């Protein structure tokens, strides 16, 4: 049987190549993603080892609550205590703050895209000077990548926006971070000062973030000694733990990137599975006659199906091998691209872990084998008579059953999806439910869609026929000719379009919600924010800015806001907390207070909360709550107000004064101002102009900025999802090439009776366009349903208004159709080039 299978593969080289291509595509994406992320991971692991390797022990405040950025600090008197302990050779204090932004020579704020902008104090152990000298008072040094990308010159003076204020510093040196030879700052910008300057400028006063210790005795003993000396409020961590944490921190920098790649790889595999399955179905259909002939000469049904399975195993193995090789190449190229985009990335070997290979084989071989089971079973039923029959079709299964089964499976998938979106269970469960739900939904749709393929495709083909006459008619008929094939070809495209449409609906809904919230609930006239990504929890602007603004006569009042995700524990759960100024905020915002009042609440002991958690905890205005903060202090707070609109304050609101008692950070994430007089725009502009990188906007500007931000984020996601389009296009090209091959004789006939090459190519191209439009249409319909459902299920703090962007969705359908035209270019050309007489003689 092996011989027969091999012969078969070699005989049909093109068919073989196309089948292989579809498997290779899927494997390539998976291997590429894993190899890239594993390589980055291992590189970061090594780097973290390097950095942590410079320190034996690290002393820092213990923290149970909130973000690393909110870790409490320690008095610098602790440094002398630690240094005095036996076995300690060297003890040095560190300070570090995020959101320390250099203003370059052109007055532009230097903002890394994604990674943080750090301010730190100098240590020759991790900062390797390659130019100039170490900083003293009013001086700073900067990492080599930031210096090179922004043309920062040693000897020049630059303004730096710190958490509290903006201040000029002279640049006296440039360093490589982490290693003497290459800068490995990973895209972060690093402004480094001497310790005293850093403490003052970064808002530490006379406190420190950490103490780094070198020892010359038994590390465990020294660790215990230090631990005993500093007490329970502090912890002493080893080099290993530090390295682990550092690695984790690096990985967080890349986590979004990694997850996007993995999600994409998953989609790629899923789409590829469709294509592989489709290809095998077609190949078996095409071979009915040939298989009939085998059966006629005495090959048993079992041997027939076994030969197909063996054939698919060969295809699967070969494609897996090719896919692994191509995937490695892709990850190399991607890594080079990341490095070229100015991301300080250390070099290292490309990592191919056994897990990646296993996964590739499971996907490449597994999907191929599974995809071949149904065709192999069908092939078993082929009778010797089939060899004589003109008609290559195999009997169709009942449409009614198809709709019933497909509908049931789809319904099951939608239920899973709904549960996932409604947020039942843990985050992992939600993701699993959503993922499985989406998968099952697609499979169900794929079972049911052949039933609707014919009528829909015929309707879609009508204008094509009207426009192009006979070639259009043939395109339409051919697209409707084999509904199952059409449906699964379109299905591959549908997946990508569905995800894009879902994203668009959710994006448009978020955007509309912003506009609604702004017009209904926001009273402030001006808005101040950092121009950095608002999704980085560390962004902010110097607190001084709001004072400057408030001092202007044109401004009546200002409010600064801060956010700490998980920054407070109440009732045993960590809560996201927002700050404002109780006494003024109600002139700026309307959080729909339903009982009590925010204004007049005690800044140090008051708290306002949303009605949902208030109901959960059973508290009313006047009741008290125990709240624990990152500095491990627990305060008893009195509920001063309960509000109903989560879009403004989230769920928990405290006063800035309380924040400043428990949190280290002093910058504001966001600010609002209420105008005193009509013409106050100039005053706002004048104040913010002194702080490059900080933006002051009026209501319209603010709304537009937010909407365009949301739009651009969703656009990026859409583009990434759109890449699955590319795979689907390969699938369309593949199916079409096989269909063209299958219709060789018919094409010869058409050419013989006077169809020109151009007409023939047009017919093939428009056939693809119709099939692709069908996929786009299904995707948009399913995606809109999912998007609307998802928007309804999303918490009110993000989406209250559901909006369907009809124009965008229409564009997707058109783009899908155009993509189909494009995918068909090669198969169409092949069809056009066929020799007429050979085509007619073709079996």
């Amino acid at each position: 049987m092996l011989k027969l299978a091999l012969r078969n593969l070699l005989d049909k080289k093109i068919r073989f190549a196309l089948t292989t291509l579809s498997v290779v595509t899927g494997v390539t994406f998976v291997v590429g993603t894993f190899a890239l992320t594993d390589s980055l991971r291992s590189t970061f692991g090594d780097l973290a080892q390097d950095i942590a390797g410079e320190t034996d022990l690290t002393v820092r405040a213990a923290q149970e609550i909130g973000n690393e950025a909110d870790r409490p600090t320690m008095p610098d008197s602790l440094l002398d205590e630690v240094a005095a302990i036996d076995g300690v050779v060297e003890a040095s204090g560190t300070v570090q703050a995020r959101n320390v932004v250099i203003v370059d020579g052109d007055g532009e704020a230097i903002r890394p895209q994604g990674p943080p902008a750090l301010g730190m104090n100098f240590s020759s152990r991790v900062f390797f000077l390659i130019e100039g000298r170490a900083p003293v008072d009013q001086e700073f040094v900067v990492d080599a990548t930031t210096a090179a990308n922004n043309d920062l010159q040693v000897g020049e003076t630059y303004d730096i926006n710190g958490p509290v204020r903006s201040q000029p510093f002279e640049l006296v040196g440039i360093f490589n971070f982490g290693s003497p030879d290459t800068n490995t700052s990973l895209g972060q910008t690093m402004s480094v000062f001497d310790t005293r300057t850093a403490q003052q400028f970064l808002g530490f006063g006379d406190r420190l973030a950490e103490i780094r210790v070198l020892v010359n005795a038994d590390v465990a003993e020294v660790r215990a000694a230090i631990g005993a000396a500093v007490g329970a409020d502090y912890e002493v961590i080893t080099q290993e733990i530090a390295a682990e944490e550092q690695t984790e921190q690096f990985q967080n920098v890349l986590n979004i990137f990694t997850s996007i790649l993995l999600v994409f790889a998953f989609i790629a595999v899923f789409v590829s599975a469709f294509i592989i399955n489709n290809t095998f179905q077609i190949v078996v259909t095409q071979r009915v006659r040939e298989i009939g002939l085998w059966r006629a000469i005495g090959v048993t049904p079992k041997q027939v199906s076994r030969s197909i399975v063996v054939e698919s195993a060969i295809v699967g193995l070969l494609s897996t091998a090719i896919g692994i090789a191509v995937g490695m190449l892709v990850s190399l190229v991607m890594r080079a691209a990341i490095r070229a985009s100015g991301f300080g990335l250390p070099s290292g070997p490309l990592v191919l872990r056994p897990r990646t290979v296993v996964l590739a084989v499971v996907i490449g071989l597994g999907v191929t084998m599974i995809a071949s089971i149904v065709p192999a079973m069908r092939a078993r039923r082929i009778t010797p008579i089939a060899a004589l029959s003109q008609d290559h079709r195999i009997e169709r299964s009942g449409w009614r059953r198809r709709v019933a089964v497909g509908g049931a499976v789809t319904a099951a998938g939608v239920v899973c999806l709904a549960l996932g979106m409604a947020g039942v269970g843990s985050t992992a469960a939600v993701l699993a439910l959503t993922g499985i739900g989406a998968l099952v939904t697609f499979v169900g749709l794929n079972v049911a869609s052949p039933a609707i393929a014919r009528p829909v495709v015929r309707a879609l083909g009508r204008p094509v026929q009207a426009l192009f006459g006979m070639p259009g008619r043939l395109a339409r008929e051919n697209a409707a000719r084999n509904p199952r094939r059409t449906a699964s070809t379109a299905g591959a495209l549908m997946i990508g379009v569905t995800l894009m449409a879902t994203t668009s609906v959710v994006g448009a809904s978020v955007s509309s919600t912003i506009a609604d919230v702004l017009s209904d609930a926001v009273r402030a006239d001006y808005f101040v924010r950092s121009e950095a990504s608002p999704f980085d929890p560390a962004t902010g602007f110097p607190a001084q800015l709001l004072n400057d603004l408030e001092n202007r006569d044109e401004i009546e009042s200002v409010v600064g806001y801060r956010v700490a995700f998980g920054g407070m524990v109440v009732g045993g759960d960590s809560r996201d907390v927002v700050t404002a100024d109780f006494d003024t905020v109600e002139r700026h915002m309307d959080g729909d207070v339903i009982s009590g009042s925010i204004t007049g609440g005690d800044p140090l002991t008051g708290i306002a909360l949303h009605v949902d958690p208030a109901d959960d905890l059973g508290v009313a205005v006047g009741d008290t709550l125990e709240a624990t903060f990152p500095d491990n202090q627990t305060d008893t707070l009195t509920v001063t107000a309960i509000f109903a609109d989560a879009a403004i304050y989230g769920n928990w609101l405290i006063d800035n004064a309380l924040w400043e008692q428990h949190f280290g950070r002093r910058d504001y994430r966001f600010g609002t101002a209420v105008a005193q007089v009509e013409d106050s725009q100039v005053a706002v502009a004048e104040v913010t102009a002194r702080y490059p990188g900080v933006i002051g906007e009026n209501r319209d500007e603010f709304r537009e900025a937010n909407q365009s931000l949301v739009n651009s984020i969703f656009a990026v996601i859409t583009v990434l999802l759109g890449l699955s389009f590319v795979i689907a296009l390969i699938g369309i090209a593949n199916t079409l090439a096989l269909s063209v091959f299958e219709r060789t004789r018919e094409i010869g006939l058409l050419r013989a009776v006077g169809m020109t090459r151009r007409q023939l190519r047009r017919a093939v191209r428009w056939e693809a366009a119709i099939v692709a439009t069908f996929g786009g249409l299904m995707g948009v319909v399913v995606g809109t349903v999912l998007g609307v459902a998802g928007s309804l299920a999303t918490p009110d703090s993000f989406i209250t208004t559901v909006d369907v962007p009809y124009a965008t969705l229409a564009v997707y359908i058109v783009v899908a159709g155009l993509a189909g035209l494009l995918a068909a270019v090669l198969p169409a050309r092949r069809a056009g080039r066929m020799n007429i007489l050979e085509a007619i003689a073709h079996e």
Partner: protein
Amino acid sequence: MSVAAPPTHAAARAVAATKIYGSGDTAVRALDAIDVTFEQGQFTAIMGPSGSGKSTLMHCMAGLDRVTEGQVLIGEVDLSTLSERDLTLLRRDNVGFVFQAFNLVPTLTAIENIMLPMDLAGSAGDTDWVDEVVSATGLADRLKHRPSELSGGQQQRVAVARALAGQPQVIFADEPTGNVDLNTGAEILGFMRNAVDEMGQTIVMVTHDAVAASYADRVVFLVDGKIVDERTDPTPERIRAHMNQLGA
């Protein structure tokens, strides 16, 4: 059997047409300097042993293939001067072709198949003529059917109707009855005979069957790529005798 002087009413002719397949040692001379004229309104049968070049001649004359040397003319148009595209348009507008089998596009109905060349040209054709052709097929009630719903003989009649519908200068048919039983063959041949007699069409048909050939006005015998003989007013007996004599 003089074909030297070109008659003005020739529908198609070949002048010293030679077709060589392959090259060097393996070259096959499928047509060897053939001179033949098919006059308007005539039904010609071409006979000859297997491999004698009958199909090759049909293909070259119908513009499906090109001769290696010599000329093929449809009307007064020399096919060797035409581009690939013009050749295609000539097939569409001026030549009809009927193959032994698989003549119809499976996705189109019978009537759509008949109208195919005209639809490709974007012209409505001559409606009266098409009606006449359609009624002559005797398939008026099956026009909306697809080929898979028609018998082999019906399919061939639709194919002949398609060849006729555009009123081409000449129709070539390569063993049109090769795949059907005797009665059905007779139906198809009767239909073609009728097209020549009643509609003034020109048909050239390859056949192995003496009875089929007897429907023609003239029989041309081909051996090894050369025309060795021809008969007018053929009967089955005479043709059979002649074929035996040629002794293939």
